[in-house]
């Protein structure tokens, strides 16, 4: 694989930053949806490169962060059931729930295992036929096809002890919910790169049409992001909002049809509970009835105490883009990557972790 240096080229980047500065006559408010973008923006100091007239906020695009506390509590309750192995992506185990965490449950004797892919979870199920192996399905349209594939694999290979707790979420409906609330005024959205590889550019078309907000899909290298900001600035200056792809090496307008077919085969769209946002209709993926024997929700109904949020934690507000991490009183003092209070500091894709990890010498 090549073509990385080109996308990190400082001359190219500075040229784009200059072009953006030349173009911008008014303040423009942008949101990067994806946590991967938040990290790249802070890592390369893109906020310092673009003119002050470009305001940038982080959005709800961190899979671990948007998982509601109540859903996390459910995962922890499942972990405590006898003869259950919980499998999950790494960051999830450190996120504090209302009363405990998966890490805490593990220390108390629950069998909680980190996997790098859903297929590993299926393999664990195969190797432990006497136990129920539950995969905690988080993520957006990027992870959903692989989770769907794991359910199909389990069905094909008759692995009857594999279950998925589907907490998967969809991107366009939550963007709609944020725009409907009107809490954060936006002129443009840096649309997610990897999500768009799957869904393509068409699902964003309602955003410029109904809300007049510019949309450009971006890759994850600094030149990608600057190119995206330039395109957004151009659309906004001309008052011609539309959906553009600034990541053509990864995204086709129609997306990945095969991956979406997998998703649609296994999942149906339903409501989902988002941290900081609440229940958003049509924004989650539930396991279809046809595959319900793989659905952990159906197999293990658990009763839960009401969820409670950590005191003073503003992860919910940060996820909505209502405040930035530096505005949270706990940030950097009480709440650090070593002792995280909320999920945005735990996850490697979280906004607080990015702000903490990539602090500038000025804001120490």
């Amino acid at each position, binding site marked *: *694989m*090549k073509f*990385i*240096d080109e996308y*990190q080229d*400082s001359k190219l*980047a*500075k040229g784009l930053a200059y072009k953006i500065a030349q173009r911008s006559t008014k303040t423009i408010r942008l949101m990067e949806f*994806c*946590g*991967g973008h938040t*990290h790249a923006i*802070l*890592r*390369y*100091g*893109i906020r*310092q*490169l673009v003119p002050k007239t470009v305001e940038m906020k982080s959005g709800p*695009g*961190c*899979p*671990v962060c948007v998982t509601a506390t109540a859903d996390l509590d459910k995962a922890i309750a499942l972990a405590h059931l006898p003869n259950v192995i919980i499998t999950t*992506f*790494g*960051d999830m185990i*450190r996120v504090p729930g209302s009363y405990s965490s998966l890490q805490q449950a593990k220390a108390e004797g629950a069998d909680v295992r980190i*996997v*790098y*892919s859903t*297929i*590993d979870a299926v*393999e664990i199920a195969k190797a432990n036929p006497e136990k129920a192996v539950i995969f905690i399905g*988080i*993520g*957006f349209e*990027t*992870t959903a096809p692989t989770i769907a594939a794991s359910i199909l694999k389990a069905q094909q290979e008759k692995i009857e002890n594999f279950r998925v707790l589907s907490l998967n979420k969809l991107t366009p409906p939550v963007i709609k919910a944020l725009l409907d609330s009107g809490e954060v005024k936006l002129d443009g959205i840096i649309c*997610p790169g*990897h*999500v768009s590889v799957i869904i393509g550019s068409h699902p964003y078309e309602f955003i410029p049409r109904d809300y007049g907000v510019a949309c450009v899909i971006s890759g*994850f*290298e*600094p030149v990608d992001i600057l190119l995206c900001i330039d395109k957004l600035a151009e659309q906004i200056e001309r008052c011609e909002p539309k959906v553009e792809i600034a990541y053509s090496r990864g995204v086709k307008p129609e997306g990945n049809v095969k991956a979406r077919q997998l998703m649609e085969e296994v999942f149906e769209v339903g409501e989902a509970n988002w941290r900081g946002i609440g229940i958003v209709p049509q924004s989650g993926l539930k396991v279809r009835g046809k595959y319900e024997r793989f659905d952990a929700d159906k197999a293990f109904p658990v009763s839960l105490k009401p969820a409670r949020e950590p005191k003073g934690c503003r992860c919910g507000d940060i996820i909505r883009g209502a405040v930035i991490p530096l505005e949270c009183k706990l940030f950097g003092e009480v709440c*650090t*990557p*070593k002792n995280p209070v909320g999920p945005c500091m735990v996850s*490697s*894709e979280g906004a607080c972790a990015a702000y*903490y*990890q*990539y*602090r*500038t*010498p000025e804001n*120490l």
Partner: protein
Amino acid sequence: MDESVLLAHGSGGKLSHELVEKKFLPFLANPALNKLDDSAVFEASGRLAFTTDSYVVNPIFFPGGDIGKLAVCGTVNDLAMNGARPLYLSLSAIIEEGFLLSELEQVVQSVKKAAEEAEVSIIAGDTKVVNRGQADKLFITTSGVGIISAGVDISGANARVGDKVLLSGTIGDHGIAIMSQREGLKFSMALESDCAPLSKLVSQMLEVSSNVHCLRDPTRGGLATTLNELAWQSNVGIVVEEAKIPVREEVKAACELLGLDPIYVANEGKMVAVVDPADANKILTRMKKNNYGRDAAIIGEVTKEHPGRVVMKTKLGPSRIVDMLSGELLPRIC
């Protein structure tokens, strides 16, 4: 079928002796070890350095090395990082029941090869066998003793304002080579771990300059963590330039794919040197003549500003704080 290690191999009886005599002694033989006394006896005078480390790498065989090579190089390098010339190592192996004897032999051969290269002898050892599941194939602990020449004073606390920061080569090779082999993450690439003994490189640097202030090998936690340790221990600031840090194309590509930053990825054959600015070029030139230092570069300097902190000038120009790695290095989800 391949023979495997049995619990009886750890009983202390006949099979235990056989294991040592057939699988360890033939490869590691030296006068002190051959005696098979309860402890090894050796002469030494002067200032000694002493260190220990345990190796639990998974997988135990990886491109560019295995747990045996790692266990020797890791401890040799820890001694070298204080300017010590490594002399002797001890080696303890905790073996999981069922581990193949042929694989054990392969590991011990790697130990032999690495020890020969680093010019150290394994003079004490132990083996234990545990029930299946109580260890993951093979764990190795090595301890080492080295001798420090008169006048050499190298410590993480010795960095001075104005010093230059040198890096001996490309970063992230070991971590990415290991990750490429992990279950569920397997991707094929022509990348090998950089696992190597650095003691000779260090002695060559000390031959050309007596103004080497700090040495440290950026293993787990990567370059970022090592620079932070040095800044903190010496109570100075460190400024590095991202564009000057050598990174292989393959590592860059894998990091982009996985959402990782190479400055946090582990190395096993690299070192950071903080040296007097007047000697920096001389030391760099000497490093480049050694195969393990051929990609060496001056990546930054020590500053009075922001003591205890590391600041990186990013490729695009703006500066940012570089923190230690907290938690585990995990690939991104989305």
